[in-house]
């Protein structure tokens, strides 16, 4: 019998209680109410969205003032996804972009839809398309994707230092 055993499976699992910490709560509560809320570093004054654990990693201090950002923003850089992979839910080709929200000092990643991948460009102005309000949770997934606003492109200077 023992000679027949070639391998055993010994899965491990532990349950965790995760707390976001007060620094991120304001961001998550904001999303729950359809608002994009970042926080400002009291030292360097940069506005973080999301407010990354409530810390400015440049200065090593707790973030302070809450600042509403966006909802519109500018594409700083992007990637056209042409590769199919397991678990893919979006039809290829699609665009994943880094978006600098108006009033924020770091970019965030989101999906670009409602335009051809070939038309997406650096400096393009975009705005969020939200899920139905009844489905909102404390998550950035409340925003389905970003779409072009049709505004003129932002000047390169606006996002130059975010590349």
């Amino acid at each position: 019998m023992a000679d027949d055993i070639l391998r055993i499976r010994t899965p491990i699992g532990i349950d965790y209680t995760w707390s976001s910490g007060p620094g991120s709560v304001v961001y998550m509560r904001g999303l729950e109410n359809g608002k994009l809320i970042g926080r400002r570093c009291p030292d360097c004054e940069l506005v973080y969205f999301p407010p990354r654990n409530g810390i400015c990693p440049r200065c090593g201090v707790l973030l302070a003032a809450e600042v509403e950002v966006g909802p519109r923003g500018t594409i700083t850089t992007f990637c056209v996804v042409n590769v199919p992979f397991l678990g893919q839910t979006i039809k290829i080709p699609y665009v994943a972009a880094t978006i600098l929200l108006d009033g924020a000092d770091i970019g965030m990643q989101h999906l670009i839809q409602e335009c051809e991948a070939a038309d997406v460009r650096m400096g393009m102005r975009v705005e969020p398309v939200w899920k139905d309000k009844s489905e909102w949770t404390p998550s950035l997934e409340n925003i389905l994707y970003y779409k072009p606003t049709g505004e003129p492109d932002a000047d390169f200077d606006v996002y130059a230092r975010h590349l």
Partner: protein
Amino acid sequence: MRDVAIVAYIEGQNTSATTLSPVEMIVPVVHEVLKRANVQRSDIDFWCHGSCDYMTGQPFSFVSAVDALGAWPPIMESHVEMDGAWALYEAWVKIQTGEANTALVFGNGKSSAGDMNRALTLQLDPYVVAPLWPGFRSLEAMGARAAIDAGTVTERQMADVVSRSLRDAADNPNVLAYGYRDADELLDEPMTANPLRAHDCPAMADGVAAIIITTADRALEMCDRPAWIRGIDHRIDFQNLGLRDLSRSNSAALASFHAGVTKDKVDVAELHATYSHHEIILAQSMGIDRSTTRMMPSGGALVANPLMAAGLARFGQAARQIFKGNADRAVAHAAQGACLQQNIVAVLEGN
């Protein structure tokens, strides 16, 4: 060898369950320890961190801890998947190599984030022991049983350790177990993991500890009475519990010997004894006479055990005894793994 001293120590508030994120816990402690040594971030030329991903449930969770340090302009930093005491060892080596002069070392852990009795089991051999999920407390009970059967530890001695720790806890505002009880009272309690009673097990905590170490040319600027690291060594026993005599700790004995513990009288010892019988096994293995050495004046890890910080806290608490002039020669110790598998020992001196 370069002379290196501990010049500042700060611990964050130990809590039973914080809602802060790990990084938010670290930030104020880092600021505070810099202030204590009266230095700026730019004075630190090496940063070293001890923590455990199994405690947070996130791979590479330690990377986010760098956010707490203000890593711009870029800093030289490192991490050990161990208690912060081993981060201190790495920093000490870094200074010995001449690549750094002043280092900030910290350890942090959020024990409340998961079932640590289960998580700690993942330190075991992953093929034949860990899949059995023996539970960490049960393993320590096995170690205590081995020591009692060998006649090196008695239940009465264990109760005396707990009683003294609870008495000392009264003078330490940063503990989670307190309220003096004498040994008779403690021995009346039922066993929870034979031969361990609830009070023989540590009060688990969420916490942070941070230490600054530096070289001779700067130590006196940062501290009136630095705690000089005169010897430091760490050793490890077999992972296979069946190959070890659990009634003693060979690795603690070796580390103690190489750190030079028995070369002179030990005024104070801060041993990382997370279970009451550990103190007795460690003292015997390390050559520390518990009747002449002041054991764990802080109350030790029994009364506040912030995982991954509690070992470094022993170094900090031992250093504090030197800072305050309460001791001229102190022994700091940290342990990790099941049944005192890994041990680090340092001798600290005021002169």
